[in-house]
């Protein structure tokens, strides 16, 4: 909702006579156009012969293929909170949660699929993730021979982490302290067990 006080009416620039006659400005514009047309050096500088050469990317914030990060023990860092699939505007993340096999956390993704063809690479999943488990990598040249192939499952996403962790290390330590300062303990007290009252 735009607030009224945020609306500002901007005055159009006043036109000079040459502006009004239009043609002088066209000629001035053509000079720029022609200058670019004949500047061979600039052309070579701005263009990359793609398959032979590759562009240098800013790996920190380039938004390419996703990966699922692993924690220091090599386990998937995701806790299946569904925040990414909730935030995803393209509805391309499909998660099935389950009880985790590890003692230091409750929940983990049994299935984690991203449809890379449906994805719009907006990075919202990365923003939404509370434990920095999903990240976008600088990998951009992904191809596949079928649609099915482009639906990346958990294994493939973890593999991408292995492939890209040298280029882009897992940036942040886990925000939630699972396993570090002791969150939920997996051990469940049975009703029949002896317990100190």
């Amino acid at each position, binding site marked *: 909702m735009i607030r009224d006080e945020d609306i500002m009416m901007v005055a159009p620039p006043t036109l000079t006579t040459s502006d009004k006659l239009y043609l002088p400005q066209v000629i001035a514009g053509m000079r720029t156009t022609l200058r670019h047309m004949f500047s061979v050096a600039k052309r070579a500088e701005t263009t990359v012969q793609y398959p032979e050469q590759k562009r240098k990317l800013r790996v920190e914030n380039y938004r390419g293929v996703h990966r699922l990060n692993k924690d220091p023990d090599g386990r998937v860092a995701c*806790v*299946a*909170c*569904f*925040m990414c699939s*909730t935030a995803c505007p393209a509805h391309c993340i499909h998660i099935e*949660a*389950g*009880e985790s096999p590890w003692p230091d*956390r*409750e*929940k983990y993704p049994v299935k984690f699929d991203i449809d890379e063809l449906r994805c719009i690479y907006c990075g919202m999943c990365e923003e939404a993730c*509370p*434990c920095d488990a999903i990240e976008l990598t600088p990998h951009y040249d992904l191809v596949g021979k079928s649609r099915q192939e482009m639906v990346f499952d958990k294994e493939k996403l973890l593999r991408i982490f292995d492939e890209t962790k040298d280029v882009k290390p897992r940036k942040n330590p886990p925000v*939630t302290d699972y396993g570090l*300062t*002791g*969150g*939920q*303990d997996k*051990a*469940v*007290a*049975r*009703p*029949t*067990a*002896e*317990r100190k*009252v």
Partner: protein
Amino acid sequence: MPKITVDGKQIECRDGVPVLQAVLEAGWDVPHYCYHPGLSVVASCRLCLMEMKMPHPQTKEMDWAPKLFPSCQTPVKDGMEVRFASEGVASSQSHVMEYYLVNHPLDCPVCDKAGECYLQDYSEKFGHASSRMVEDKHKNPKKDIGSKTLLYSDRCVVCSRCVRFGDEVAGAGELRVINRGHRAEIDVFPGVPLENELQGNVVDLCPVGALLSKDFLFQQRVWNLRSTPSVDPTTSAGATIWIDHNDDRIFRVRPRFNEKVNEWWISDETRFGWKYVADSKRLNQPLQRDNGAMKPLRWEAAPELLRRLLDEAASADQGVGVACVLSPMLSCEEAWLLSTFVRSRAPQATLVTGYVPVSGPDKTFPKGFKISAEKAPNRRGVESIIKAMGGPNATFEQFVKSAGDGKFKLAYVTGGYPQVWLTADQARAIGKVQTLITHDLFESALDEYATIRLPGASWAEREGSFMNADGLIQPFERALKPLDGVKSDGQFFHELVGRPGLYRGAKTREAMAEKIPAFGDIFVPRPEPEHAH
């Protein structure tokens, strides 16, 4: 009706309710954990505190008292004046919220309550953005307290709702608060797990994520669920429920407040009785007997075929040899449409009340909650329709007997029960009917004899209304798309009758009410106040 003034606004309230309830009903959002209208009041959570005007001890003039009072424990009195919109109340709320979060693990990402958690909601609305707690959090263990419920003690706010529910409503009292102060936690006695027929309700009652259902655990985040108002299909009590579903899958069933039937509760039978909807053994293909073998039949061709068969059977004798078994699993609308169809072609057809499963006696709990023994939702509805239609009718036993005697040339038998409902003998007797049309959810002993077998839809895939054992007609809505290959019963009967357009429960009910006025009077429970829980 007493009138009270809240934040300078005068509201009318019901007699004898606490101020908190009156204010919630008037639309205010007052935070509360321990107060629940169906349970006794303990005033232990200290969140609903309010300011109240009372006579000054010295001057005897009405003035704001310096102390805060729990609004859940103060009954309304005509003319009283209270306020929530004051600095004192707000500061009290935010400090109490801070206390609640001192030991809370803040594991919302993995907590199933996230999204409908009142700890989240209240700290967002009434609490602080940050915590001043620097010490290590005190951590209570996670406990497996029963076959269906898990207790995450560290998330607990010790509101004792579950304890009071066990004592007062379920009458079992397995849960207790043990220890004191910040060590207080909920627990069960050693060797006595939480196992009663209403135990699922403690999960709904819990305002935070401490008590969780094992059945729903990790299945779905609650914000992805859509809730459809429905009516319990497992018993004749007619408890009103919400069906929580997503992507045409039911994930859980919750009670829907109903002042006349089930109040805030449902039994576990209702709560977990939906599983058959997702059963892989459900029928999903109409079949027609062709030279002894069953061949697929197209839904589009079915109405014409049925009409022809019915006309053939009824041509000679006005349809004396035709019977139609109206299952108590059908909604009133569906039963009416089907009987209208049969009677329109065979005026002397016999209408039969379908088999009514009964198990044990009715059970009544301390505060009056009932589990009825009759395990079908709409026996009374079907019976009253048959009565209103007039003409020949029969009970299921009579029908089986006369069918065994070879009285019927054609019978339309509807089932729709989640469990096996026919004995082999009964099936053999019914099998004597020359043209047998069955309409059921699962395979049954009748399949062997059926001429046409139609797959039915479960109640979550249909819409209509059920008349409960007390004669209350309660509508329910469609939650899911029918299984692939299945047509919802109402839609099919709608097409049989030859009505135009799509089947809609409400529309059909209107048409039915013109013929049978009793069905014009439906009951829809009043909604709970927006901010109550």
